[in-house]
């Protein structure tokens, strides 16, 4: 396989640049064009392209499994039956083999170390009026990761929408993506935030006055699935890319970038808890998809964003 493939992704630019560089070391014959933007824009662009007739995209690599499922249901995805999935947990693989998780991103709590004396340890701690008043979270209307998180939370019997209603009533606000959250908390404008782990831990590593907590009730998880579009005009090269993504090289690289690996036998980044010590909240993907629109609406009604 050779030629050019176009990858639509919501993964950060510099990370993606490193990924492409590493990929090309193994596969110099394939040129990778990347189009990176937020999940919402990405899906909008894709939708417009479908309406106009075709899309130049060959591979999708996004955070939002719900959106991916939607694409699948619309018949846009290629079923890659013989993908080399050995070593991947079944939970991150689409039963129809149209998309495959590439890493694990969890959502937890960030707080400002200057403002917060006693660190929160659980999601429930956020509902205290003083805490909620100074809480910011990403909006599912802007962030794919937030979609999964909200959809997961509301499926948990102990939280549900009541949890968000409490937060909203107490004055918690929604920003746009996770970037806004880390920004607001690091600046001390907000004391607490809900955020994906690597962004918080990266900021901490660079010296921002923040710390991150994996709440004791569990974290929501995003698998950052990769998929091939059915209309791709270079399916062969796309397959090579997907194979590589779920292979060992890529997994080790993503650990270097601060992600939990998904492949058995690859260690998590230094300073991260062991993967099996983490409690991951379970969620039903089918229900997520079914409720997606309603959930976003409900969130928008609560938080205005």
């Amino acid at each position: 396989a050779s030629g050019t493939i176009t990858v639509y992704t919501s993964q950060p630019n510099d990370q993606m640049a490193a990924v492409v560089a590493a990929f090309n070391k193994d596969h110099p014959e394939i040129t990778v064009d990347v189009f990176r933007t937020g999940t919402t824009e990405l899906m909008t662009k894709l939708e417009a392209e479908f309406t106009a007739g075709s899309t130049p995209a060959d591979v999708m690599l996004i955070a939002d499994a719900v959106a991916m499922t939607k694409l699948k249901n619309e018949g846009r995805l290629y079923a890659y039956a013989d993908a080399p999935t050995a070593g991947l947990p079944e939970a991150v693989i689409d039963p129809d083999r149209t998309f495959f998780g590439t890493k694990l991103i969890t959502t937890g709590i960030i707080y400002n170390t200057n403002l917060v004396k006693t660190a929160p340890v659980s999601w429930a701690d956020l509902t205290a009026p003083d805490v909620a008043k100074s809480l910011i979270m990403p909006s599912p209307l802007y962030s794919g990761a937030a979609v999964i998180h909200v959809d997961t939370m509301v499926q948990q019997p102990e939280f549900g929408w009541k949890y968000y209603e409490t937060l909203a009533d107490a004055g918690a606000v929604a920003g746009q993506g996770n970037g806004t959250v880390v920004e607001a908390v690091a600046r001390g404008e907000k004391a607490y935030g809900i955020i994906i782990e690597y962004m918080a831990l990266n900021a901490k590593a660079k010296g921002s006055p923040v710390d991150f907590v994996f709440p004791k009730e569990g974290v929501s998880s995003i698998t950052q699935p990769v998929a091939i579009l059915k209309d791709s005009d270079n399916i062969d090269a796309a397959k090579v890319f997907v194979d590589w993504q779920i292979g060992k090289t890529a997994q080790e690289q993503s650990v270097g970038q601060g992600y939990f690996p998904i492949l058995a036998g690859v260690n998590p980044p230094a300073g991260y808890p062991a993967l099996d010590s983490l409690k991951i909240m379970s969620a039903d993907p089918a229900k997520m998809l079914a409720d997606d629109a309603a959930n976003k609406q409900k969130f928008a009604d609560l938080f205005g964003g």
Partner: protein
Amino acid sequence: MADLSVPRVSPTGRQRVSRGDEPLFVAFLALVVLVLAVWPLGRLFVEALGTGEGGKSFGLMSEALSSRAFERAFWNTLETSSASVVVSVLLGLPLALAISLFRIGNRVALTFLVLSPLLIPSQIMALAWIELMGSSSPLLGLLGFAQAQGETNPLYSRGGIVWLMGIEHMPLVFLAVRACLTTLPEDLIEAARIGGAGMFRIVTGVLLPLAVPAVVAGASLAFAASVGNFGVPALLGIPGRYPMLTTLIYQRLNGFGPAVIGQVAVLALVLVSMAGVALGLRAIVLRRSAPIDRSGRPLAPFEAGRFHRPLVFALWSVVTLLSVVPLLALLGAALSPAVGVRLGLDSVTLAGFRSTLIDSATVRRAFANSILLSAGAAVATAGIAVLLAYFGTVRRLMVARRVAWFAELPFIVPGTVLALAYILVFLPPLPLIGVSIYGSATILLLAYVARFLALAIGPVQTALASLDPSLDEMGRILGARTFRRIARLIAPLAAPASAAGAILVFMTAFNELTVSALLWSSGVETIGVMVFSLQYEGNSTAAAALSVASIGFVLVLALLVDRLGNRLPSGTLPWRH
């Protein structure tokens, strides 16, 4: 004339047709606007007419418009945009008056700073103000107004949105007014002084009324820009739970599904009609504006006399608040190792600059792309604007006025919507040529030109509406063809205004985000997209560094252009006299 034996000149041309080559020009303009604006938006709006879930015709429309969320967002948008226009005018008009009328030092620096809100990305501006108004505000702290820790920042509110959009669009008013004032003939002021009028009456009785068309032009642009603004409502409105139409559109986009484009198109139509009203108003004012004989000596700045010091102090205070503080905030962010780290001598680092400017080839490419695209868009829009304004306001051709109206539509819809429309029509291979421009720099250039035409048309139309028609008539009498008259007479006479427009376009396009976010492709990255991505990923140090670099870059460019200033028609550069 000593020698009359030289063969005499006979009448040029033999046509019986009256309009000569004008229809050709107008047809060309109509074609340009058709391709750039009418076709894409039309294609999009066709989606709006689609049937909704119930299957009724116009169902989509009634569904989208009947929801409570829509109603709230609609009124919020209307209120907030109108109020922010007031802010823009209240800031831009006095600044333009002060800088144009009085002899003050550092005009270049002042003008550049006044224009800088165009260059500072919304989110940076917002952050600076959030800091300024927030609990740890050094300024409010000094005044004893600082908020208690953890209180919600007052900027997350309608007032905050109004204020920030007001600042962001202030340069639109400023430049329009300034371009108008620099070419006013001095004798109009002198006559008033002779009549015993003091500064106050001269300003209120003569200058302001003469500047009204320019103010209206600037204000209507500011209104259109506010209505379509996404950045500020997203930054402040979401946490403030204050929905506006643009954020509503974004929410709808998020719904993702076949009906989404139609729904979005419906909302975009609403925005278009809101701004259309403002533009209609402007047309009425322009039609009433009187021709000014500008052959007299142009206005020279006054000595402010004993008001000099207070004036300079006031000017610099305002400019500091509006521009210097955000710029410093930006610079601070760019120099700190990570967000939230207190900046001290020991913590200052150039890492942000290094990682963005030196380490990344993509960023360098983005710089090159943004410069070429913005400059291209600036030149193209200025050219088209002069043509449209000439045929519409000087030659008074109805068709040209209509065309100009359509040309402004892409500015009013949110960038995302315009980008969608462009994808819809430019993804398939173009008719006749058979090539698709999708994924190339061309589509970005076209989209920029379309999006920012309005910025260029406004000031030029105002300037030409007050042009003494005999200046063009004399050219016609001498047999000069349309092209020559435009090139040699109209373009130089409109130069201050078209330069103002081009500068607006360049600066705005340089940071453009919402259109580019959907239309860029690998190889044609732009600065705006890069800054936003970095920010979005939580890497705000790098984002700030990139912003600082781009502002510095534009400053250098402005200084270079200033060097050419002597060769340009007087009044062309807004910071010169």
